């Protein structure tokens, strides 16, 4: 690791620290018992095996959407439809296990396959619109998220609804649930799938020709075009792969042990969380599990804090926002970086003089 890289890492840790400090100050303002709240936020996840399990379990959707966004953003395709793709993936998985009546082993596999397909088709819409009509994918994907949300609610209320519960589907069959792998927690097979996806995402982006083309286009589209890279293919492939991962993530999340029924009425926001994951992982899918661990820890701590004290969960969104701001602010601490580089240069000059 060279000095510039080490500095980037330190800068990121410092940004996280500053964001946490600002959040703590906020807690002091809004809470009657700020010290208890902060203590609960930090130590809560360690209080029981179940809580620790929750940390690991809530990493799973974050790894999926984070990896998807890493791939799309690496190609500089600012497609924010991951949120809607994830939602749609969950709906499709629920639909398959409720309506298809497939045998136990096959049911979740078909459900996940179709969830990924739906996610892929959904997230490719902005790409197709960009290629065919040159619409900016940013705006079209934002609209699609709302369309996905209402479409899924429509299907839920008119095809899957259990009238005795109201706004939720019938109970998902037990035989299609993803098995728990650590007893006494909610950690399920989805974790393994998520980690495999993160590694495959890394291999795709950094070890294949298509991945190289994606990253080159992301760095400099004009250069990529002049070197003969098919930009249309890059646009389509990057968003489709991102969509596959988002849809799969939604399916895995729904078939995990937390949701006995499909009851998602509002977008879950994992698409937005993915942006902070992608920022912290520096667009490298291999680091998404680490970034997801951090965010999941913060989330779990905050939800325990919300349960036992008067500080609500929303504080985390503020922390997240500040972290994104500071980590992507290129000039944050740049003065220090310049001084460090200058010092190094002087040192090496001196060495040369001595020699």
């Amino acid at each position: 690791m060279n000095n510039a890289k080490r500095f980037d890492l330190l800068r990121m840790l410092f940004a996280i620290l500053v964001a946490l400090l600002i959040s703590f100050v906020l807690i002091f303002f809004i809470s009657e018992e700020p010290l208890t709240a902060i203590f609960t936020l930090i130590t809560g996840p360690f209080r029981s095996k179940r809580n620790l399990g929750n940390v690991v379990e809530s990493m799973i959707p974050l790894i999926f959407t984070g990896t998807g966004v890493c791939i799309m953003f690496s190609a500089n395709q600012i497609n924010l439809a991951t949120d809607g793709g994830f939602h749609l993936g969950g709906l499709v998985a629920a639909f398959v296990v409720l309506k298809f009546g497939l045998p136990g082993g096959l049911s979740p596999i078909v459900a996940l396959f179709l969830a990924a397909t739906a996610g892929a088709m959904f997230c490719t819409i902005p790409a197709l619109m960009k290629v065919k009509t040159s619409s900016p994918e940013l705006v079209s994907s934002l609209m699609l998220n709302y369309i996905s949300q209402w479409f899924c609610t429509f299907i839920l209320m008119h095809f899957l609804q259990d009238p005795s519960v109201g706004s939720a589907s019938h109970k998902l069959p037990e035989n299609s649930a993803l098995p728990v792998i650590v007893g006494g927690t909610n950690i399920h097979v989805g974790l393994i799938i998520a980690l495999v996806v993160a590694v495959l995402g890394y291999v795709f982006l950094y070890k294949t020709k298509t991945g190289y083309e994606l990253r080159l286009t992301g760095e400099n589209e004009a250069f990529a075009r002049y070197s003969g890279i098919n930009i249309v293919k890059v646009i389509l492939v990057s968003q489709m792969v991102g969509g596959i991962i988002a849809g799969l993530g939604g399916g895995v999340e729904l078939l995990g042990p937390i949701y006995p029924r499909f009851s998602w009425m509002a977008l879950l926001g994992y698409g937005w969380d993915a942006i902070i994951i992608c920022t912290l992982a520096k667009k490298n899918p291999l680091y998404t599990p680490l970034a997801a661990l951090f965010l999941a820890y913060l989330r779990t701590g905050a939800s325990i804090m919300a349960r036992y004290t008067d500080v609500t969960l929303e504080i985390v969104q503020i922390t997240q926002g500040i972290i994104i701001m500071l980590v992507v602010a290129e000039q944050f601490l740049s003065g220090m970086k310049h001084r460090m580089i200058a010092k190094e240069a002087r040192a090496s000059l001196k060495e040369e003089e001595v020699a």
Partner: protein
Amino acid sequence: MLESLLSPEFFNAILRATTPILFAALASSVASKAGITNMALEGIMLFSALFGVIFSAMTGNFFTGLLLTMVIGGLIGWFLAFFVLNLKTDEILAAVAINLIATGGTVLLMLAVSGDRGSSTSIASFSAPRIVIPLIDKIPFLGEIISGQNLMTYLAILAVIIMHLFMYKTPLGLKIRAVGENKNAAESVGISSRKIQYIALILSGVLASMGGFFMSGGYMNMFTKDMSAGRGYIALAASAMGGNTPIGASLVSLLFGAAQALANMMQLTDIPHELIQMIPYLTTLIGLGVYSYSNMKRRQKLAGK
């Protein structure tokens, strides 16, 4: 159905639904003309909707509430400008961060002020009044549409005219357009692009905050969680489709306002309301596609292909 579509009430509803989008679209147009995509509109509107309620309740009248809210909008615009221009933050990611902070921050703040997580019903706020224009309200049909609107709606229409004059008839407007068109060329004739972009983003924040204020003090009489519901994003599309000009943006906003009003009215029919809720977003998506496509064809024609 057709009868209610042609009634003055429906046109009234269109203007009401257009107002917040129109302010935000104007906000987006001035930022875009200066070369910056202001996706933080969504967060600015959300913050302003809450601050509008708080400030008007605190000061006891809507007007000071509106002015203070506009200051908040300007401050958020300045904050965005500081990060994007001084700290070289990616403008989209900075906006995502601001919107996240707005989503969580408004709920926290509302909880602290009113003790309620969902809506601000316990805060006695003041809304902008409806204005009846004498004489005009006597004209049949047209009078019923033009008169009796919320003050903010008239302000929005006024803002379109002012922004048009500002962008095309003043030296500062020319500088904003010059910076957006070609930053280096503008710099070469002595325009400080940073200063101009600061001004544009602050102005953009102020305009968006007026839209946010109307959401909770006119369109509705309280703040509810996530009440901007993507209007900031719709405004981005409206502005882009209007060629980022104030007049173009306002015409497209009217189209989306109509879609929203239609959706509101169709709630009364048998069509599932989930599908109706999609209408504004679907209209925006299709409109964006059609506009971008014709734009692309025109450019290709100009390029002689």
